């Protein structure tokens, strides 16, 4: 098997996402690998989109931006932010193969999200890297 995570690891990841991000009233968090596979996803119960399609597009989007970065001589892009009228999407790379997407509204500031995502990412890195 190329890629598998046990129940215990997944429980820990869910707990981190719940405590560090969902508890802030973000709308949705998705942890995925760069192939577009979903590792964990939580939402506030109001999400009406297909999370598998979102993950596929997010992996493609981040991959495209990373390739653009290499073309201009940048080694890697670590984060990406899309601002919408109602919803914002924040992408953060974890280790080399994982991506954390946080979808949040304008009631939360980008700076605060960046701080909390960085904290959560650090904890998740320890689980995924173990």
């Amino acid at each position: 098997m190329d890629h598998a995570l046990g129940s215990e690891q997944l429980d820990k990841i869910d707990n981190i996402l719940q405590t560090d991000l969902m508890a802030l009233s973000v709308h949705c968090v998705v942890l995925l690998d760069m192939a577009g596979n979903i590792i964990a996803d939580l939402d506030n119960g109001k999400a009406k989109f297909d999370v598998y399609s979102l993950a596929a597009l997010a992996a493609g989007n981040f991959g495209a931006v990373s390739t653009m970065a290499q073309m201009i001589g940048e080694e890697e892009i670590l984060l990406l932010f899309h601002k919408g009228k109602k919803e914002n999407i924040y992408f953060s790379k974890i280790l080399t193969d994982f991506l954390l997407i946080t979808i949040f509204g304008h009631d939360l500031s980008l700076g605060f999200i960046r701080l909390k995502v960085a904290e959560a990412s650090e904890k998740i890195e320890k689980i995924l890297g173990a």
Partner: protein
Amino acid sequence: MAFVNFKKQEVQIKIVYYGPGRGGKTSNLEYIFRKFKEHILTELVTIKTQGDRTLFFDFLPFDMGKIAGYAVKVQLYTVPGQAMYNSTRQLVLKGVDGVVFVADSLEAMRKKNFESLKNLQDNLKLHKKSIFKTPFVLQYNKRDLAEQGIPLLSIESLEKDLNSQLKVPSFEASALKGTNVLATLKKIIVLTVSTIEDQLK
């Protein structure tokens, strides 16, 4: 790189439709989507240019039921066939579990088929995968055009060009009419799942 979620008892597999531009990769997914629309709970995701060509990829996820107690989520992708989009093809191939190569049966496309297959082999190598060890199905598309008197490559010629070394299952198909589209899909799913099935038990 199939992802197995032991907590949700779920496995996600990624199947990529590859081949030369305008060969019928997107048409395969569109037919599958039309056929199973009532059972697929999402839309077919497409990223196209204004000229209706695939720019990035098409994406169609669906549930396939359970194998060894695990819910299997199949994720179908296409790549853009045009030569200039190679970096995009490399991205989409990341983590691929199975490949359907959609060859264009038009006589004029012989060279393009061969180039695309070679390109696939090179791009799989970038992901440290061998074309000979990846679950693989060949589809010879547009066979219906023979009825209109359009010159097509013979099956013998396509087999010799594309399948003499691979020796993988191949299907004569018409993605527009749906001929053998589902047979192709079924075959690649069976081949892909069988490579990971032992590890699920």
